[in-house]
């Protein structure tokens, strides 16, 4: 006769919290959480005590006070009477401007350099290597101040242009003037938020342009779809490029003509140039330095990405009878982009963060306004620095959010 008995039940002992793997992880986590909370409490308590002894409280009331300083390079209208909030907003837009401009230029230059570095032409490859090594191994801050010195010290003074026909682009030591877009039959602006600190205008001309552009792109996609369908059915692909070009270009040309589009050049009036789009030296230096610096990193990424695709892929695609353009677009690029894009985006992120070095050349980005003059005028270091961090954190996290979505979409399906 056999009897089944349960194994003796172990009673819980305190030492099992440490030595029993079932409970140990919980113990460690509770200890870690307690340690973390204690540290946080300690920091906050210190902060409160210190602020009290300084007679300060944490308040964001200074945002509604007039800023009292000027911002010369800006996208929104702004006077020194405006509030600190508006100054911060103008600064934020300046940060985004230089970041977007920089990312575009860095990508173009970087891809070009990366591809040329793989060139079979020895001297071209060597020049590109030298470029990459020089830019990667010297601090970006030095590049920024160097380019700033270059554009403001070695360019001519506006008065040297007296009596000279200046043309479309004028480079002076007070900045570079580009033609501006003017419309003689402008549709006007759309204003938001009235007269508050967040007010902004959107040009209806721009909206009209974008609507027509996207309409054209949409129709062009339709044409491509129908061409695909024809190819599926008959095996012959009809030539569509001229149709697709026409549906995009013709409506835009018509719209620009109707709006009376023309370019406005900068002209020398008195001691300075008036009109045109004025890029100040600070913006120019920051933009150029950041994009050339980041381009060196992007070039390496592009080179690595292209080298990562084994030659067998190209040969196999050739064996299938694809032409070289199609090999690139259907076989090599989709695989190379998977390698290239994640580090590329993290370089965009670096560029955006590095744009905070604007403060070194006096470009009024968010660090120059909120973390610079506003902080110094109001004496609200804690609030300003925390807000500044929050702004950059939001930008960074949204960019890396986009990257995560992309990564999960192109991820290879593994077992």
């Amino acid at each position, binding site marked *: 006769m056999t009897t089944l008995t349960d194994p003796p039940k172990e009673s819980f002992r305190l030492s099992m919290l*440490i030595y029993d793997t079932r409970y140990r*992880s919980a113990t*460690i*986590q509770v200890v*870690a*959480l307690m340690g*973390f909370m204690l540290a946080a409490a300690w*920091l906050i308590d*210190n*902060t409160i*005590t*210190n*602020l009290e*002894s300084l007679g300060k409280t944490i308040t964001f009331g200074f945002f509604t006070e007039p800023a009292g300083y000027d911002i010369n390079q800006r996208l929104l209208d702004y006077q020194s009477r405006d509030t600190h909030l508006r100054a911060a907003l103008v600064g934020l837009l300046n940060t985004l401007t230089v970041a977007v401009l920089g990312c575009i230029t860095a990508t173009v230059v970087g891809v070009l350099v990366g591809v040329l570095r793989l*060139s*079979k*032409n*020895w*001297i*071209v490859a060597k*020049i590109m290597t030298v470029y990459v*090594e*020089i830019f*990667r*191994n*010297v*601090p*970006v*801050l*030095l590049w920024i*101040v*160097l380019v700033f*010195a270059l554009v403001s*010290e070695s360019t001519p003074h506006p008065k040297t242009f007296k009596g000279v026909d200046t043309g479309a682009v004028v480079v002076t030591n007070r900045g570079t003037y580009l033609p501006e877009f003017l419309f003689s039959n402008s549709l006007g602006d759309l204003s938001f938020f009235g007269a508050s600190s967040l007010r902004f205008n959107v040009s209806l001309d721009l909206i009209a342009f974008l609507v027509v552009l996207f309409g054209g792109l949409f129709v062009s996609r339709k044409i491509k779809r129908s061409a695909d369908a024809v190819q599926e059915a008959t095996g012959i692909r009809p030539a569509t490029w001229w149709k697709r070009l026409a549906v995009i270009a013709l409506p835009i040309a018509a719209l620009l003509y109707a709006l009376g589009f023309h370019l406005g050049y900068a002209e020398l009036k008195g001691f300075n140039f008036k009109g045109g789009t004025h890029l100040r030296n600070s913006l120019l230096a920051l933009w150029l330095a950041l994009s050339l610096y980041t381009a060196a990193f992007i070039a390496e990424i592009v080179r690595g990405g292209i080298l990562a695709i084994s030659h067998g892929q190209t040969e196999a695609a050739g064996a299938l009878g694809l032409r070289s353009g199609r090999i690139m677009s259907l076989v090599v690029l989709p695989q190379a982009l998977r390698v290239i894009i994640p580090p590329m985006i993290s370089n965009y992120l670096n560029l955006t*963060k*590095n744009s*905070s*070095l604007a*403060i*070194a050349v006096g470009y009024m980005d968010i*660090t120059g306004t909120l*973390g610079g003059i506003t902080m110094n005028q109001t004496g609200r*270091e*804690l609030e300003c*620095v925390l807000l*500044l*961090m929050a702004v*950059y*954190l939001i930008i*960074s*996290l949204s960019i*890396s959010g986009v990257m995560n979505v992309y990564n999960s979409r192109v991820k290879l399906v593994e077992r």
Partner: protein
Amino acid sequence: MSDTSFVRTEMLEQKEPPASTIGIIGWMRENLFSSVVNSILTIISLLLVAYILSGLLPWIFQSSWNATSLTECREIFTATYGTTHGHACWGVVNDRWLQLLYGFYPDHLYWRVNLTLVLTLAALAPVLFSEKAPRQLLYLTMAYPFLMPWLLWGGSIWGPIVVALGFVIGYFVYRVVTEAAGELIALIAGVAAALIWWMVLSGVVVSGLDSVLPIGIEAVESRKFGGFMLAVLLGIVAIGVSLPIGIVLALGRQSDLLIVKAICVGFIEFIRGVPLITLLFVASLLLNVFMPPGTNFDIILRVMIMMTLFSAAYMAEVIRGGLAALPKGQYEGADSLGLNYWQAQRLIIMPQALKISIPGIVSTFIGIFKDTTLVSIIGLFDVIGLSTAIRADTAWNGIYWELFAFIAVLFFIVCFSMSRYSMYLERKLQTGHKR
């Protein structure tokens, strides 16, 4: 039937390849003029190089090394070349290079900085070139963290010795207690003993020893630190301290413990999401607010703390990449050997993960080293801050390119050699995985 077939019995002399495919001509045909497009590219590139060199070479070499002010430089140039443009005035470098390298460090104490640099290299040698350097140097590596601050900041020798003694005491307690009561309790006891030593006893011991036996060297204040030396100092401290922190953070991020993981992820993503300059603002304006009232430690130390935290987050990501690249079989193999978590990490996982992440670690180091220039924005006199200060001097008002060139060359030499070292290391370590 006669056999007419002919079989050659001796080898023919090898024929020379055609003259157009060998030697310099062959090389040029292959690499420079292989097609029309390539030929055009080559010619454009050559013109570009010639243009740049024609401006750069006279600027570098038809220059003045002895002038003591920019005006004097210009006089010399007008006298010799007839123009002031296109000639470098290296007099500024000649005049101020010591300042650019050492900042405002007292000049009779430069030997201490130099000695520290030599010690740094000697302490790094057993780590960097493990098979060539003698093993005994590792003792120096262990003593280095205490020797370096003492040499640079000076003061009593007892401070660093007593701090080092804390580690010795902690280790000793750990060893003794391990035999009596298990590892975990021993670890806690060791840490507690060291903390008690540092917090409670060390102050008394230091002042006691000082009054009995005052041995020390001249103290140097932090605000005299500057120049390239500051960049090197900040870079070494930030990387040296951040490596262990980064390993812990990376392990925390990989761990199954949710709360630990959340804390690590939060820290890493926060630091990586904000620019270094905001962290430096924290160092210069806020760190004293976060500390207990009355604490006031100097700006260099505060900057070091923030730069260490900054590089720790990046280091953690690099090491996490190394951990993720390890095949799962390594973890399972370690488990099947019956190793516990820390043994597995120490013996199996970390040696391989660190090896994989070496290029990333070096490039993080290069990045941090370049980023040390940002301290000029919060008012420290590193090389870039000093170049502005030199320009404020009436003698050198208006001089840009010579200073920038000097600084760029300094950074280029250091960063470029580090990236070459990382390549050397990759080649050396890539023994097992090459296919």
